């Protein structure tokens, strides 16, 4: 039996049936990591000792005949932007290289209640800014499908770890596509829940009105199981929402009842024709099975990426002001303080700390945000972008009056080669053209692998209504079954 390809449900059954122990399962994953992660570099660091200890505890409970939670004893990888108390958390940045998280993120607290096992922290673009993990201060991650290619980003380490069999599932974060795009590039499932469905407490903030934590997993069932464990209102995140999650995960949902929208704006220039062919062939399969397919229009899609590249850097520049070398992290403050002009000394601490601590892309976005929010430009850029964001959201509201879900490609291309887009930031930004609207509107989105194009995975994105996450997952599962 290959313990490195199990789904959550399969692993849970084997643990419950005492066919394997959690310690065996965890060890099998560390063995695989030791064998292959020097080539892939999905992990920034591992928590082997703690993981084995936690696994032993679960095994003890099982041997006593106690019932266990769905995620108990199952190894998970966590994107290194989510805090696990007492463990390093770097956001793949030099500025946090030696920082120890003082508390657990709410999602970690919830997974601990389920006795999930955390095997390590995964690589990413610095502060989640990027689409390839090439912006990590600690070196890029390679795509397990083809080591010459990027795994996508920013949650590239998490997607690669799931694909490579280093963990059963992983957590990522998604601000403009950072869960869905790497899931698409690596051929796994990536789910960004509705904004407010999952608490952001303990997630290092990038752009607070867009960030959301979600699972990366082998199939839709697993993504749903993780989502069920981590969602919910949290007192420590005032934007989290109290929802009565009417699950009915198991009640029948007939494909003939499903109305699927295909936005014409997503199938135009810039889309790789092979990807278009693959997505269209899934759509015609669904139609044959009885789903109702409707062409729809999301007219403001054309301005989504420009809107995103105003809202996001504006929030980035405000959020990252906290890294100043005074409170924690990398610091160029000299102690005792040198004598002389105090003000210039303090400014010097900021300039040196931030100039040396942040990588080029992070500094680029902070400067972009600073420019956008500066006097004279605020209304022309920021206020205008907030208005266009409203129009983009209204596009979705209108569409969901007609259809249940919207189908699009996850990305305009398959996984690209290292260095292909690093010289021109704008070409890298275009990798997120199909995913950013979802974050701007706050709606849930999922990427599922639907095809292979010359050996490289193709992701299909499904977009759902606000807080209709469970139905979105169920429809994704139907599609997953049909294309198999």
């Amino acid at each position, binding site marked *: 039996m290959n313990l490195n390809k199990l789904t959550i449900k399969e692993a849970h059954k084997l643990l419950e049936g005492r066919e394997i122990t959690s310690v065996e399962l965890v060890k099998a994953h560390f063995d695989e990591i030791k064998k292959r992660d020097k080539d892939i570099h999905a992990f920034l660091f591992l928590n082997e000792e703690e993981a084995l200890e936690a696994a032993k505890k679960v095994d003890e409970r099982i041997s006593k005949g106690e019932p266990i939670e769905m995620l108990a004893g199952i190894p998970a990888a966590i994107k290194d932007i989510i805090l696990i*108390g007492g463990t390093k958390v770097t956001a793949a940045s030099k500025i946090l290289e030696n*920082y*120890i998280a*003082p*508390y657990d993120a709410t999602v970690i607290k919830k997974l601990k209640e389920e006795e999930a096992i955390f095997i390590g922290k995964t690589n990413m673009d610095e502060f989640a800014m990027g689409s390839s993990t090439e912006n990590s201060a600690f070196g890029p991650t390679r795509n397990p499908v083809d080591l010459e290619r990027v795994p996508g980003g920013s949650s590239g380490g998490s997607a690669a770890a799931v694909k490579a069999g280093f963990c059963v599932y992983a957590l990522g974060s998604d601000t403009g596509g950072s869960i869905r795009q790497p899931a698409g590039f690596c051929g796994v499932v990536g789910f960004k829940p509705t*904004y*407010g469905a999952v608490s952001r407490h303990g997630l290092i903030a990038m752009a*607070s*009105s867009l960030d959301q934590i979600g699972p990366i997993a082998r199939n839709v069932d697993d993504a749903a199981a993780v989502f069920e464990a981590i969602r919910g209102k949290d007192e*420590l995140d*005032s*934007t989290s*929402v109290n929802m009565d999650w009417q699950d009915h995960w198991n009640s029948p949902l007939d494909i003939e009842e499903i109305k699927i929208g295909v936005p014409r704006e997503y199938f135009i220039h810039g889309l790789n024709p092979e990807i278009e062919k693959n997505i269209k062939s899934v759509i015609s399969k669904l139609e044959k099975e009885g789903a109702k397919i409707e062409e729809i229009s999301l007219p*403001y899609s054309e*301005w989504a990426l*420009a809107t995103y*590249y*105003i809202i996001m850097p504006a929030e980035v*520049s405000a959020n990252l002001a906290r890294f100043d070398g*005074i*409170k*924690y*992290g990398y*610091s160029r*403050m000299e*102690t005792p*303080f040198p004598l002389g*002009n*105090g*003000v210039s000394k*303090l400014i010097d*601490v*900021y*300039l*040196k700390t*931030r*100039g*040396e601590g*942040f990588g080029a892309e992070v*500094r*680029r976005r*902070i*400067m*972009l945000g*600073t*420019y956008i929010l*500066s006097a004279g430009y605020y209304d022309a*850029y920021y206020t*205008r*972008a*907030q*208005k*266009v*964001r*409203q*129009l983009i959201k209204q596009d979705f509201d209108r569409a969901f009056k007609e259809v249940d879900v919207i189908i699009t490609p996850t990305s305009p291309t398959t996984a690209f080669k290292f260095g292909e887009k690093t010289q021109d*930031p*704008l070409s890298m*930004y275009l990798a997120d053209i199909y995913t950013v609207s979802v974050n701007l509107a*706050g709606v849930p989105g999922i990427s599922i692998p639907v095809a292979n194009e010359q050996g490289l995975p193709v992701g299909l994105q499904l977009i759902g209504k606000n807080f209709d996450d469970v139905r979105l997952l169920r429809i994704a599962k139907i599609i997953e079954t049909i294309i198999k």
Partner: protein
Amino acid sequence: MLTKKEVEKIAELARLGLAEKEKEKFAEDLSSVIGYIQKLSEVNVEKVEPMTGGTDLESITRQDDETKSIFDSQTRKQILNAAPDREDDYFKVPSILE
């Protein structure tokens, strides 16, 4: 196209140190993105209300309760210990008054 001087001004506002040889590359990169986002001027936004957050929620408030702390004393200690320099429960910074 942003000038080197404008890049220096933005970097100063953002409290970011830049190496001399980076400035031109940043000017080029920022100009290309700023050029791209000009695209929004094509959109008619008359009478559109700005969307100011990720949800429709409005200013969530709670009762201020000074007896309630979200962190225990251990966590508090860890947070303070992460500072490069401190005195008692204060972060220490260079004096800004002569």
